[in-house]
């Protein structure tokens, strides 16, 4: 069967049987979406590249035991999200060591605290940019957890339930994060509407 017509899950199964071409096709299909999710989550090109490698290595090495019990993209973005949170946590600890601060035990509040420029900037700062740049900039200004939920929906095509599974949050929390994220984005982008 032509690889282009195969589902993600079948491609992964074929790779699990030793078919390298199936993985290559799968990688090309999701490469940019995963990278954009990571890049916009960590806001750092180098870190995003490191994470990208880690995420796909984990996918490759998990192929032998892969069972298509859930959507492949849910699995993929769950790995991406977890790696991203791990990296942020490690970086935060390193920063804390430098500044003498104690690391926060709670991962969720940590994400918020680590959100670079978590406060909303005045729209004036993005007015000079075109709409695309403005949108991406607006996304980057969302608090970390709202941004992560929004990106998982936008890049990973995950449903609210799937985002809840991927991030280890409950359904209502994710729904609320998405609602706040959209409200803020609309607020930031009203001029471009």
């Amino acid at each position, binding site marked *: 069967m032509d690889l282009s017509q195969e589902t993600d899950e079948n491609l992964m199964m074929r790779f699990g*049987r030793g*078919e*390298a071409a199936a993985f290559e096709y799968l990688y090309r299909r999701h*490469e940019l979406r995963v*990278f*954009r999710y990571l890049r916009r989550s960590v806001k750092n090109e180098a870190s995003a590249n490191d994470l990208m490698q880690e995420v796909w*290595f984990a996918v490759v090495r998990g192929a032998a035991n892969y069972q298509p019990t859930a959507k492949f993209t849910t699995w993929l973005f769950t790995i991406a999200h977890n790696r991203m949170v791990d990296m942020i946590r490690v970086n935060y600890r390193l920063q804390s060591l430098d500044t003498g601060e104690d690391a926060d035990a709670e991962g969720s509040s940590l994400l918020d605290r680590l959100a670079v420029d978590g406060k909303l900037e005045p729209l004036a700062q993005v007015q000079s940019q075109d709409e*695309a740049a403005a949108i991406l900039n607006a996304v980057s200004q969302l608090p970390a957890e709202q941004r992560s939920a929004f990106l998982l929906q*936008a890049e990973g095509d995950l449903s609210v339930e799937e985002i809840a599974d991927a991030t280890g949050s409950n359904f209502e929390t994710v729904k609320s994060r998405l609602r706040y994220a959209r409200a803020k984005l*609309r607020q930031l982008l009203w001029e471009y509407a």
Partner: protein
Amino acid sequence: MTSKDNTQDEELLARYRRAGDADAAAPSESVRSAILAESRRVAEQLAKKQHPFDLSRPAANDARWKITAFGTVGAALLAALLIGPRYWESRRATEVDRTEVSSVPAAAPAAKTASAPAPKLESISPASPNESLQEVVVTQADRKASKPSAEESRQHSAPAYSSRAAQGGALSMSADKLARASLVPTPASLQAAAGLGDARQAVLLLDQGVAVDARDADGRTPLMLAVAQGRLEVVRLLLARGADPNAADNSGRTPLQQARAGNLRDVAALLERAGAH
């Protein structure tokens, strides 16, 4: 959430995706190469796991596999040669038993026996009646001399019988049937052995103390049952062990009358020599 909100959400996602498509963000070429190289390495391992035996390579013990293979085949053939005859013998004996058992009920009632011809078991009958009788008598004498216990008799009777049957001897009962019949030394067992023409079993039962003239519900003695079936050897044996040649069943019929009615001249002559009238 209203439909207006939904529309706005979808529009927002669409705008984001358009912006994302316009964004040139992509992983570095080195990362892409590393990922694809790792995938090829793992794929190779996974492919090997699917086919753990590489048939293109010669076997490590190339010199020995022939010895092992031919040795195994040889051993199997040898086992077949040893087991085959025993298997064939037991099947044959089972078939003979089936023939005998099916013939017994038809000939059992005395009235019917008188008119029915004697059963023909040519395939298992001895080449010479005298020869087989000698064999039975010798066996009996041997047993008397050695006086084996009842338990030993039960244990050893079956295999001894089998080997004789394989030699085309007079005894026609299969080993397992013999074992079954010899479980309990009762008059019924002796009657069954007499009807089946099993002289060896009859000897064993008599040695164990079963009465030679034990009667069944119709008043028939083992001698009558043996006569009804034309079992010359068993008739000879029972007479030698003191069976009453003139005993009559509930209907008043004697063994000699049975033999004459069945046109069994040898049996009738034997009975007359033993004093039957």
